[in-house]
């Protein structure tokens, strides 16, 4: 007689055994998130939003909640971009005071542990936490909200201009065990304020681990937030990260996402332009190689009139890797005079690499301007030949073209040392991919290039 073995619900034990963290309202929210996750379950490829990205290996791996680790300091010492005078370090989802430095925060800016902020800045946290990261349809956001224990908290008071970038570094993993962390960030930029924030994700180990990150950013009236996400997880790690943004009237928000690491990566950027005259830029540059998968989904919701949005996502694919880009633009009925532009380009270095890309426009207003374009291709042979006739060899010519391709996104980074660090890391990783391409070409005994 066959017995039906009921498959244990994903993360069931972890959710059941989660320790309480904060005040009543917070625990209620977490409880609702846990219940919602139980209903939604881990997405499958039958879900439209996850069609090309199979995340079942994440549940199957049965990651345990990560505890504290030693050795994070060593990893921080290896960071290519380490210039920020204000740095928050979150290790396996927990704020680490000894590795963080907050002394040079200007007056009007508060930065530190999210768990501590639950009591120290209770009013701000209660007012904003969970208000833009909607988990009703997003399982991983629900899981993060249910399991969140700590994270980064950043509050910029009205009118405060923060000159120096603030760096939040998330270190995840543990040698010798399969762990996961659910780091959270809450950023509130008051009216008329200005701040640049860098969020970096790195691994504490080369072993597999799972980072499930959620960041919420509220951009107040006439405020300006320049955000950078740098994903450099270990090459065996799983990263599911979402940035949820709410912009008020006349607010300006830009996010630049750089994805260089991870084995299976899903980046989501959601922006709701909820005040007239707002401006939102979402740029991305990613490198997918070996047999990795990098999936970028963006959603820009023009909820009010006279807002502008611009998106440029660029990917370089090598090996037998895969990439996904899905850019959704929603223009609500009252969002007249919307100006939305979306471009995504992919450069394929090998025949084995694949990208699936889809723009989605849902337009309900009638006086709008929405353009989108996608281009997928290989390096331009005519351009390479032209450069060679000027004396640059094949590798130099190819490098120059790839620099040009990536440069469009790199050159928009408004933090010089970060830009340089990203360029160096990208090209170091690319060098390996290109060497592989060259080796394959020469063994295939093609005519010498």
């Amino acid at each position, binding site marked *: 007689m066959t017995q039906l073995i009921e498959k244990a619900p994903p993360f069931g034990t972890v959710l059941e055994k989660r320790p309480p963290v904060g005040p009543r309202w917070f625990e209620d929210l977490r409880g609702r998130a846990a219940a919602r996750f139980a209903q939604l379950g881990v997405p499958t490829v039958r879900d439209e939003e996850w069609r090309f990205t199979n995340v079942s290996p994440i549940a199957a791996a049965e990651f345990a909640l990560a505890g504290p680790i030693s050795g994070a300091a060593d990893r921080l010492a290896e960071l290519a971009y380490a210039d920020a005078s204000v740095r928050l370090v979150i290790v396996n989802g927990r704020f680490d005071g000894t590795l963080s430095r907050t002394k040079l925060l200007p007056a009007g800016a508060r930065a530190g542990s999210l768990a501590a902020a639950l009591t120290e800045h209770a009013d701000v946290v209660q007012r904003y936490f969970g208000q833009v990261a909607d988990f009703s349809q997003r399982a991983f956001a629900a899981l993060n909200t249910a399991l969140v224990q700590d994270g980064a908290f950043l509050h910029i008071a009205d009118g405060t201009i923060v000159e120096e970038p603030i760096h939040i570094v998330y270190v995840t993993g543990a040698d010798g065990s399969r762990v996961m962390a659910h780091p959270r960030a809450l950023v509130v930029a008051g009216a008329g304020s200005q701040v640049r924030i860098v969020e970096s994700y790195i691994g504490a180990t080369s072993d597999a681990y799972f980072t499930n990150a959620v960041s919420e950013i509220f951009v107040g009236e006439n405020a300006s937030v320049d955000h950078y996400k740098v994903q450099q997880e270990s090459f065996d790690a799983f990263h599911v990260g979402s940035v949820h943004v709410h912009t008020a009237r006349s607010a300006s928000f830009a996010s630049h996402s750089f994805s260089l690491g991870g084995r299976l990566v899903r980046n989501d950027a959601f922006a709701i332009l909820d005040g007239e005259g707002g401006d939102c830029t979402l740029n991305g540059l990613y490198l997918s190689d070996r047999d990795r998968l990098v999936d970028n989904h963006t959603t820009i919701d023009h909820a009010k009139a006279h807002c502008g949005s611009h998106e440029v996502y660029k990917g370089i694919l090598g090996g037998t890797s895969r990439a996904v880009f899905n850019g959704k633009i929603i223009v609500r009925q009252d969002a007249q005079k919307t100006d939305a532009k979306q471009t995504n380009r992919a450069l394929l270095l090998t025949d084995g690499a694949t990208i699936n890309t889809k723009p989605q426009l849902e337009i309900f207003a009638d006086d709008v301007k929405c353009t989108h374009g996608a281009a997928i291709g290989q390096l331009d042979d005519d351009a390479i030949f032209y450069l060679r006739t000027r004396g640059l060899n094949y590798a130099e010519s190819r490098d120059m*073209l790839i620099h040009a391709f990536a440069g469009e996104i790199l050159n928009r980074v408004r933090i010089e040392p970060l830009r340089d660090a990203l360029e160096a890391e990208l090209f170091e990783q690319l060098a390996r991919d290109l060497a592989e391409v060259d080796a394959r070409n020469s063994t295939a005994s093609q005519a010498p290039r």
Partner: protein
Amino acid sequence: MLEIKNLHVKAEGKEILKGIDLTVNTGEVHAIMGPNGSGKSTLARALSGHPEYEVTAGTVTFDGKDLLDMDPDERAREGVFMAFQYPVEIAGVNNAYFLKAALNAKRKHLGLSELDAMEFMALVKGKSKVLEMDQSFLSRGVNEGFSGGEKKRNEIFQMALLEPRLAILDETDSGLDIDALKLVAAGVNAMRSPDRSFVVVTHYQRLLNYIVPDVVHVLSNGRIVKSGGKELALELEARGYGWIEAA
């Protein structure tokens, strides 16, 4: 300097050059004229090493070395320059950056020290005067948003910077108005020297009023059918190409 013997070249499976013999001595300017389809541009592209042009027979010696055995970039570093008929636009590759890299690649090959940014800019300033190139072009992408005339001037400007031993101009005059033509010709003439040779491929005689050739060759159906002095160009202008093909 350049010796072409019995050169046969195929493109897209079709034989275009059917046995070209041509000798260009150092310091000479040779014009290659001919009707459309005669193989003029094919000759230029084959000399530059374009991958889509297959040499099926013959030899090309440059300064005594086997040119056909060299990759396109090697030929460039050895001193061969090709001014394209349709220069490609390479957005995102900064003109200044690219030119400095190209120049330094050549200097390295010749055992010279590389130029730094300041030295390079000083050199550029001097060379861009003759062609009336606006300095702003340096910060733009290669040929990005350039008009046809600007692209051709940029080709000659690059030539001036790289100081080749042999410059091949592939229909540099096509699409130019008389003012642009004069500028381009002035740029070329400023580079004429006893150590430098030019192969000027052109359909129209007009350019040769400004860049006066030493020898004129007429290409027809993949072969050089007539060679002469500069008067030959004038005769072609008066009589057209028909009488040559009839011969």
